[in-house]
C-alpha cells in the first residue's frame, strides 16, 4: 500500500468512526419477567417466563394453571416484556408479570391478584426506573391480611423462613445506566442446622437458606 492509499484509508476510517461515537453506541436494554420461580435442592422451575433477546421488540408468555409440587399454585399468569435500544432517541424497557389467584406453601400465603411492573428509561432529559403499577390483591400472610405493602416489607414465617413483599432491587448508577427488579412475593426458605445440648451445655443452631420461591417478578434495565 502506497502512502496515498494509506492516507485515503485513514480518511475513510476517520469519517466513518464518529458516526458510532455517540453515547448511544452502547445503548442496550434488558427486560424479563416471570410468574413463578421455585429453587430448592430438589426443584428448579420457572413458569410463564419471558426474556427479551437482543434486537427483539416484545416477547410474551402465559400459563392458565401453574402447579409446582406442594409449594405453589397459580392461575392466569402472563409475562410481557418490551424494549428498545435506541442510540438516538433513548432506550426503554418495560416488563410485567401478572397472576390471578396464587397460593404458596399450602395456603400459608395467598393472594388473588399479583401485578409486577418494572420500567426503565434513558435518553432525552430523563434516566430512571420504577415499579409503578405493581400491586397485590387480597394478600394474606400466615393468617394476616396485608394491604399495600411498602417496598421491601419483611415478614417472618415461623418454621419456614421469611417473605419479602413488594421487593424492589434497583440497579445502575442512575446516570448512564438504570434498572430495577420487582419481586412481589419472595419467600426465602430456611432450616435450622446444627445446635443442640450436650454435657457441656447448649449450642445455638444456624439458620441456613435452603431455597426460595418468587411469585410475580419483573426486571428492566437500560444503558
Amino acid at each position, binding site marked *: 500500500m502506497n502512502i496515498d492509499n494509506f492516507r485515503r484509508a*485513514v480518511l475513510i476510517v*476517520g469519517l466513518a468512526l464518529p*458516526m458510532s461515537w455517540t453515547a448511544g453506541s452502547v445503548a442496550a436494554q434488558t427486560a424479563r419477567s416471570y410468574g413463578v420461580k421455585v429453587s430448592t435442592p430438589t426443584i428448579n422451575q420457572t413458569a410463564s417466563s419471558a426474556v427479551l433477546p437482543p434486537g427483539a421488540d416484545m416477547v410474551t408468555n402465559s400459563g392458565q394453571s401453574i402447579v409446582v409440587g406442594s409449594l405453589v399454585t397459580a392461575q392466569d399468569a402472563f409475562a410481557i416484556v418490551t424494549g428498545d435500544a435506541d442510540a438516538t432517541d*433513548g432506550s426503554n424497557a418495560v416488563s410485567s408479570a401478572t397472576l390471578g389467584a396464587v397460593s404458596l406453601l399450602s395456603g400459608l400465603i395467598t393472594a388473588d391478584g399479583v401485578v409486577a411492573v418494572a*420500567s426503565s428509561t434513558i435518553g*432525552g432529559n430523563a434516566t*430512571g426506573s420504577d415499579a409503578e*403499577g405493581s400491586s397485590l390483591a387480597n394478600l394474606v400472610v400466615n393468617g394476616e391480611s396485608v394491604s*399495600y405493602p411498602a417496598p421491601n416489607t419483611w415478614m417472618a414465617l415461623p418454621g419456614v423462613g421469611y417473605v419479602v413483599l413488594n421487593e424492589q432491587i434497583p440497579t445502575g448508577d442512575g446516570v448512564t445506566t438504570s434498572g430495577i427488579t420487582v419481586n412481589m412475593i419472595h419467600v426465602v426458605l430456611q432450616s435450622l442446622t446444627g445446635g443442640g445440648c450436650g454435657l457441656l451445655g447448649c449450642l445455638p443452631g444456624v439458620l441456613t437458606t435452603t431455597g426460595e420461591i418468587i411469585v410475580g417478578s419483573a426486571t428492566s434495565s437500560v444503558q
Partner: protein
Amino acid sequence: MFKLRTLAMLAAPIGVVLIASSCDRQPGAVAPGIGKPLAHFQPGNFVCVPVKITGGGRIDYPPEQAEKNPPASHEYETFGAHVMGSGQQDANGVCLADKGALEWVDHRPEMEVNGHPLNLHATEVTFAEVATDASCTDGAVHWGGKLRVQNTGQSDLDFEVWDCDNGEPGRNDGFAISVPAIDYAVQCFTVTPADPTCYLTGGNRQFHPTH
C-alpha cells in the same frame, strides 16, 4: 491526525442531516376508517413519517384517572405494544406500518372469558401515522391492524390504538384501544392526556421520531 479527527467530527453531523433530510414526508395520510371522531387524533390531522413507539404497562380502567384502582377490584389492564413505520403510503393513502406487536390482557372480572382474563394478541400491524393535534409532548401515534382473541380463537379482527408519549415519567403517557367487531374499547374522554387515551398507571411509552 488532529485535523483528520476534527474533519471527521464535523462530517458526522453533516451526514446525519443529509440522511434525515432525504426522508420523504407525506403528510395527510389517513388510516382505515374505523372508530369515531375524537377530540384529539382527528381525521386529517396525521402525517405519514418514519415513526416508532415502544413500551408497555398498566391502565386502570374504569374509572378514567391517573391513580390505580384498589388492587382487590381487579379493574386494570396490562399490555405490551410497539409499532414501527417508515413513512410509506399504499395506493389508498394508508400509512403503512413496517412491523409491530400488541399483547393486551384485561383483568377486569366482568371481561373474563370462560373464567380467564380477556387476552388480545395482534396478528398483523398494518398502519401507523403520527398525530399532529394530540397534546403529547414527545409524540402521538395512531396505529392498528388485525388481532386474535386468544380466549376464543376469533381472528382477523380490526383493532386500532391511540398512543401518547407525554414525556417522563410514564404515568403521564396515554394509551387506548378499540376492537369494534367485539364491541370492545378501553378509551378515556374526560381526565386524559389526549382523547381518547387513558393514563398509564404503570410502565411507559417511548416515542422515537427517528429510527
